[in-house]
């Protein structure tokens, strides 16, 4: 390995400035907390983990610049990043050329691992569920357990929100369901009244929403205003289950169904401990991005441990065959370097999130 | 050189809302003539120019240049023809450029056919520009601006800018030049020179002039014929002597 100073140099690419800085801030904190935990416990194989940040601003060009710098200037061996799928897609060829291990922790676009592993890029891994898995799970639960067949779509207008709906549509026929209205909102949108009124009049039984956490309370409040709170539930993924969202609009969140990689409310000792520690450390509850980055650093540490070296080739091999116990269950990788992750399903009942199960699904890769 | 007048305007009207700035004016400028246009403030002289040169759209009337009807053409359409140029009452120059560049620009479009040829970089283009520079330097000397020729035009005094404007008009030697108060703010000695160069352009190159001017001495010495406007209408027309004697003109314009 290139780093001879006895540390593990780990690059973290995330949007640390600009409009998406809030994602980067959580990612960084999660990763740093994990690194501190590992270092306090003596490091990995005696080496301390040194997290080196790279700002992507959420744009591909900046993301590539950050990646290049981490590789050439900071001499990192491993990179975790980015949050945005389009940035991650641009980073893949760069790490491939340099032979540096990229472990993505938060992008959900399926293309990332279509192209990885057996798909071509051997240095890209992803420890995050894809949009496809989630879409199937939500739809299945809504149809089988709730008997819904008519949906309205209200998702964020990004690769994430769009892809989730694309895969939802793929599975609609299987459940003899239909989408009655389809709308996408721009990140940061604050006015949903018109759309919610339209949904109210459309006869939809549930609103499929894939979005970011900050829109959920607004949507909830405006559902109350428009008079559909408690009548048409939200399903999908947009942190319906955090305490603050529920507090913002309890009536609207009742009956919301969510499938997530992780949620602060998830009831496992490891998860609870993480939430507690994070909140104590940063005076703020962690979000999904904080968790996945925290977990991914631990995952990487374990792979290094198992490889007994920081040689990238060996770590890569270790990662491919790893069995890692995450806060939500066991993690393994398939031949496309995609993690097989359990997905948790929750429903809000009586103002409290109730876990309805954890599911895993294999991905059918396009031939 | 007789025959058609170079500029033939009939029944020109322009109103701004209720204000009838120009109200049915007929005016001809003969070939090779220097014609004066005077009148009290607000009588519609500048507006008349605007309508003739296409800066404003006349409400009624016809403008014929060299026998061709150009009523309703835009300022640029008319200017590009290269037959008639005008100066503005409020002095305007290309502020950041020095005097020579100002003049070269003023002549440029008339030596380059069409806009594509201006992108040319060959020696033909360079020679043309060099010729323009030559002419520009001559005019700069005439206008007494030689000492300040490297200063940006926007940083010259009011009178100096007025002179640049005047010199720009002479660059391409069009058939007709409309000057709006060319002597305003020019010192008496230079006025003589400006008058001289107008005469020279007129006699040796056959350029016709229509000149708005409040300096009545200049008007009488330069023009063969003077038209007087008042409240948008033609009040009188005739030789300078007639005009100065005319009682109506004295009351409306000259005062006393």
């Amino acid at each position, binding site marked *: 390995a290139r780093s001879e100073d006895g540390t593990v140099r780990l690059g973290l690419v995330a949007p640390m400035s600009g409009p998406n800085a809030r994602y980067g801030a959580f990612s960084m904190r999660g990763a740093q907390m994990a690194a501190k935990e590992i270092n306090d416990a003596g490091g990995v194989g005696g080496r301390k983990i040194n997290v080196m940040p790279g700002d992507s601003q959420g*744009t591909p060009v900046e993301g590539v610049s950050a990646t290049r710098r981490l590789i050439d200037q900071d001499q990192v061996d491993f990179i975790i990043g980015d949050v945005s799928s389009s940035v991650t897609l*641009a980073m893949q060829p760069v790490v491939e050329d340099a032979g540096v291990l990229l472990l993505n922790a938060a992008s959900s676009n399926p293309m990332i691992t279509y192209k990885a592993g057996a798909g071509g890029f051997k240095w890209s891994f992803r420890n995050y569920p894809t949009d496809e898995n989630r879409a199937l799970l939500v739809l299945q639960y809504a149809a089988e357990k709730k008997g819904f067949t008519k949906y309205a779509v209200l998702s964020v207008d990004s690769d994430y929100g769009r892809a989730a709906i694309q895969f939802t549509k793929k599975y609609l026929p299987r459940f003899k369901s239909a989408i009655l209205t389809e709308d996408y909102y721009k990140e940061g949108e604050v006015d949903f009244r018109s759309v919610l009124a339209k949904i109210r009049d459309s006869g939809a039984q549930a609103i499929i929403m894939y979005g970011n956490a900050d829109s959920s309370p607004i949507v909830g409040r405006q559902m109350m205003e428009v008079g559909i709170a408690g009548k048409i539930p939200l399903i999908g993924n947009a942190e319906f289950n955090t305490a603050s969202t529920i507090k913002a609009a309890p009536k609207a969140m009742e009956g919301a169904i969510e499938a997530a990689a992780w949620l602060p409310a998830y009831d496992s000792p490891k998860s609870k401990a993480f939430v507690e520690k994070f909140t104590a450390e940063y005076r703020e509850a962690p979000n999904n991005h904080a968790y996945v980055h925290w977990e991914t650093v631990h995952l990487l540490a374990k792979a290094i441990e198992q490889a007994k070296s920081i040689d990238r080739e060996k770590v890569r091999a270790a990662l491919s065959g790893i069995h890692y116990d995450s806060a939500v269950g066991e993690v393994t990788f398939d031949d496309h370097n995609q993690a097989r992750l359990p997905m948790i399903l929750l429903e809000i009942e009586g103002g409290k999130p109730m876990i309805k199960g954890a599911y895993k699904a294999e991905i059918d890769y396009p031939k | 050189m007789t025959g058609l007048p170079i500029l033939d305007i009939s029944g020109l009207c322009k109103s701004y809302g209720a204000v009838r700035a120009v109200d049915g004016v007929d005016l001809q400028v003969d070939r090779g003539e220097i014609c004066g246009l005077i009148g009290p403030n607000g009588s519609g002289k500048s507006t008349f120019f605007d309508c003739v040169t296409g800066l404003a759209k006349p409400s009624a009337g016809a403008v014929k240049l060299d026998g061709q009807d150009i009523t309703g053409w*835009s300022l640029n359409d008319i*200017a590009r023809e*290269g037959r008639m140029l005008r100066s503005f009452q409020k002095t305007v120059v290309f*502020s950041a450029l020095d005097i020579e560049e100002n003049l070269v620009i003023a002549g440029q479009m008339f030596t380059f056919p069409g806009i594509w040829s201006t*992108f040319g970089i060959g020696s033909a283009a360079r020679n043309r520009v060099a010729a323009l520079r030559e002419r520009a330097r001559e005019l700069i000397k005439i206008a007494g601006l030689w000492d300040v020729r490297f200063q*940006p035009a926007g940083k010259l005094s009011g009178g100096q800018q007025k002179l640049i404007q005047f010199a720009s008009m002479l660059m391409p030697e069009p058939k007709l030049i409309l000057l709006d108060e060319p002597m305003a703010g020019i010192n008496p000695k230079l006025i003589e020179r400006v008058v001289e160069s107008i005469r020279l352009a007129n006699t040796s190159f056959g350029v016709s002039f229509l000149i708005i001017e409040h300096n009545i001495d200049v008007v009488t010495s330069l023009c063969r014929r003077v038209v007087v406007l008042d409240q948008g209408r033609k009040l009188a027309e005739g030789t300078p002597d007639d005009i100065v004697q005319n009682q109506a003109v004295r009351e409306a314009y000259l005062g006393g």
Partner: protein
Amino acid sequence: MTPAELTAATTGRDLRVPFGVALVALACAAPLFLGNYPLHAMIIALIFLLPAHGLNLLLGYTGLLSLAQAAFFGIGAYTSALLAVHFGTPFYVNFLAAGLMAGAIALPLGIPALRLRATSFVMCTLGFVIIGQAIAKNWITLTRGDMGLAAIPKPWFALGPASFTVSGTVGFYYLVLAIAAIATLVAYLIVRSPAGRNMIAIRENETLAESVGIPTWHYKLVVFMISAAFAGLGGSLYAHYLTVVSPLTFQMYYSTTMLIIVLGGGAGTISGVIFGSLLFVGLTEALRVAPELRMIAYGFFLLGLVFWFPSGFAPLIGRFWSFLERRK
């Protein structure tokens, strides 16, 4: 162009040539002493140089402040990407098509927009970017929407039966360097031609320019198209270099970046723009040492630029010239 510069342009030519040659030689030798990452930064600077030249023709010479560069940059990037991905055409086809497409689209956009004055024009051009992004997001059958187009092939050339792929950072660097050099030469020839002088006239006073017979409308339209074509060419390089395009390519960020390059370097000078793009990219990369403070520092840099170097850093270059000349 100030008279000082005009005189510098004529009297300083003897110095400019050797200096320019030295600079080009230095640029050619760069891979010998620059690592991958600085080379990458150079590539980005050179890619941005193209749209910046375009904007400079428009803003610096013709006086039209446009925020549409990102839109044409995006159009170029998508054109190239779509051709490469769907038809597997060689690089030069994609590249030229990107420029042509951007220039062609600029025509119908320019006709209404250029009728507007100052601020309205600025906002209209900003609108192009925002609407462009909406199209890239929603015309999913063509653009794949937010998923973007990935796996754009490396630039390759086909010469008869032989074909040749530019790979690796160094290879791409030379490709971009050559293109940037040609673009700079083209921009230089445009502004030194009589048309360049007419463009300045339009910038200084449009009505006066009209009254001396300059067809301002045609010039504005032509320059707008040229500037769009420059941006489109830049977009093509961008797509081939990063190998992904997404609707994020249509972003105000790129427009303001071009603006900063042009104004920071010195609007209305060719050398200023070159300097500006190097400076800008160098600065943003240098600021990476402190990610949290990066954008704040950048903001202060902008303020400093506006207040202390209102005409960009080009006057510094000018002063450097006259310094050299005095030494001679």
